[in-house]
């Protein structure tokens, strides 16, 4: 699964230059009235089907940008939206 990711600043680079930031799960929920269970679900629970999903990646060895990309866990390739 040596694949590449397209950094919006640096272009296509080897995946090992990046830090994985997990699936897109939307912005941090507001904390007023947030239940413990909702918070811990948001923090840890994910639905990971065999289908492309949005993910966060950080170009740790390069420009230092967090960006979103859509990738298919069944092929490990980025998918054009």
């Amino acid at each position, binding site marked *: 699964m040596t694949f590449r990711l397209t950094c919006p600043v640096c272009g296509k680079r080897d995946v090992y230059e990046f830090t994985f930031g997990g699936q897109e799960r939307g912005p941090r929920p507001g904390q007023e009235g947030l239940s413990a269970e909702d918070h811990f679900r948001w923090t840890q*629970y994910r639905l*990971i*089907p065999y289908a492309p999903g949005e993910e966060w990646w950080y170009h740790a060895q390069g420009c230092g940008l967090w960006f979103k990309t859509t990738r298919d866990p069944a092929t490990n390739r980025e998918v054009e939206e």
Partner: protein
Amino acid sequence: MSYLRLRRLWKPSPLKRRYEVVIIGGGIHGLATAYYLARHHGIRDVAVLESQYIGFGGSGRNTAIVRANQRTVENVRLYEEGLKLWRVLTDELDYNLMFFNCGVLGLGHSEASVSAFRMLCNTHNFLGVKSELLDPQQCAEMIPGLDISDRLAFPVQAGLYHPPGGVVRHDAVVWGLAKGASAHGVHIHQGCEVQGIDTEGGRVTGVRTTLGPIGCKRLGIMAGGYGGAVAAMLGMELPIHPLTIQAMVTHPLKPFLHHVFSSGAYHVYANQTLKGEIATGAHMDPQVNYTNDATAYYLKHQAEALTELIPALRGVRFMRIWAGLADMTPDMAPIMEGNLGYDGLFLDAGWGYFGFKSGPVAGKYMAEYMATDERPAMLRAFQLKRFLENRYSGETAAAMKYGHWD
């Protein structure tokens, strides 16, 4: 001589449209659960559904290391019982699982890991599981050629030796359990991929498969690395990330490595198989993934690590690399649940890279759970709700960064 009469290990069986119990996943967890359901609980109307061939997933892709030197009490007890089962099963199944009780040696390369080893050692011995703290010289005596000099970036500072551990022939476990389950009437269906799960009124009623619908009263999701994807068919979110873990073997050599060894600092564990290959496993890639693709990166990484630790390994070649999935939870402990969201739905998942050594013992308790609807005491520590209560099992010490993939 009956030895020379060759019989099918498991019988081909007709696919029925309805079973009392359907188990998704023909790996050791699924097969063991089926085996114990039939053998211990008299539930023989069981089908094991496997999308590829039995043992295709993690069961046939691990490095076959078995041990019980865990960090917390609940885990030590579970894996200790697991260790004792190899011998019992070899006899019960009349199939040589080839448990090579060679002991497992962990290497520590920092003051912090020495403290961690001491904690493990004390815990194990207090619980009656043998463990021993070694100095670097003793490590070198156990692992011929191990470099304990200061030449290393991370010199060896201590070893934690765990005599009850060893290596089991992983394929034999799959086949032996299939043999045993089949002998007790369990149906094993290979090439049968589950594509959906049916429920009605809060109950599981069956599965939809590439071979048509199959009804059941109880359903076990025991699909290893694919467990999260199967649960996703019900829209069920889980704290599970499937990650790729890779392993590789060298050309076969005459025996010289007589123990399993591992090193956290170098992200490497290795043992010499009965066939003589050095089988070695690597660290994991962090991103979620359902492929079994290996990478050039780890072939190289592993070579760097092994040749630094044992310089003589520069004299050997890698002949095969492969990958499997590890279903990681935030605390590196499994999730074993019953009637989860739906009556009759059982989940055995999140084993990470501990899925092989736990197979039979997990099957034994999951069978009990499925047969009685009562959570066995042994499984109390492995409930899903611990993640929602922020009560991690403590199986790993490190705090997570963004999630359980890092």
